[in-house]
C-alpha cells in the first residue's frame, strides 16, 4: 500500500506544475487519499545529496516513477521522460504514474 508520494522540482524548469496536476489527478482517481509532498531543490549540492536527476522527479515510497532515468547525473535541469510512443516529454506519462501507483 502506497504511503508516501514526493515530487521534487527545480523552479528553473517550467514543467512541475503540469506534472503536479497530472500526479494529483492520478492520485485522486485511485482514491489514495494521500497528499503529494512537494520539495524544491535549490542548489547543485542539494541535487547531489537528493540524487535529483532533473525536474520534476516523482518518487512513490522512495521509488522513482521512471526507474530508467533515476540514476541520471544529479543536476538543476529539466528531466527528460520517454513516452510509450517514443516521443520525448518534460513530464512523465499518465501511464508511468498509474503504474507507479498500482
Amino acid at each position, binding site marked *: 500500500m502506497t504511503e508516501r508520494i514526493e515530487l521534487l522540482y527545480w523552479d*528553473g524548469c517550467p514543467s512541475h506544475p503540469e506534472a503536479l496536476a497530472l500526479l494529483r489527478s492520478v492520485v485522486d482517481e485511485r482514491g489514495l487519499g494521500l497528499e503529494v509532498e512537494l520539495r524544491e531543490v535549490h542548489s547543485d549540492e542539494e541535487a547531489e545529496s537528493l540524487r535529483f536527476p532533473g525536474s520534476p522527479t516523482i518518487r512513490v515510497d522512495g521509488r522513482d516513477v521512471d526507474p530508467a532515468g533515476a540514476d541520471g*547525473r544529479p*543536476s538543476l535541469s*529539466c*528531466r527528460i521522460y520517454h513516452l510509450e510512443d517514443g516521443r*520525448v516529454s*518534460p513530464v512523465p506519462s499518465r501511464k508511468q504514474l498509474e503504474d507507479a501507483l498500482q
Partner: protein
Amino acid sequence: MSLALQEQAPSFALPGVDGHEHTLDSYADADALVLIQSCNHCPYVQAWEGRMKAIQRDYADRGVRVVALNSNDRVRSPDDSFEEMVARAEHEGFNFDYLYDRDQSIARALGAERTPEVFVFDRDRRLVYHGAIDDNRDDRQVGRHYLRDTLDALLGGAASPIAETPAVGCTVKWRQ
C-alpha cells in the same frame, strides 16, 4: 533584456557541427533568418526538434535559413559540449546549421533566456518575431503556428501577425 523588435541581428562567427565557421554574412542570401536558441539536453528542445527540421525543409526553397545556437555552459551541462552537439546533429539528421556559442556572447546579445527560443530576422536582418515556435510542446495539440505564420507573412511581404510570444523551455545554462 532581449533584443527589441526591429533591432539588427548581432554579428557572429561560430563553429558549426559541420566543421565550418559560420558568420552572419554566411546567410546573406536568405530572405529570412531564423535563429533558435537551442541545446542538446532539454526535453522541450527535443520535443520541438522535429518541427524545427520540418520548418527548414518546408521553407528552404523560399529562402529561409534555420540556424540553431547552443550557448550552454558545458561544465554545468556536459551533454551540451561541442562533441555532443556533433553527435546529436548526426543522430537526429539535422537539416539546419547547429552552431556552438561557447563564450555565450550571442545568447547575451540576443537576450535569450530559454531553449528553444526563436528570433526571426527579415531580409534586412531586423528582428520581426521573438518567442516560441508554436503554442504547444505536444505536436498533437498545436493550435497556433507562430513561426510558420511569421514566415508566411514575411515572405508574402506582410507584417508578422504576432511579434512576441513567451518562449517555454529550459533555461540557458550560463557560466558561473
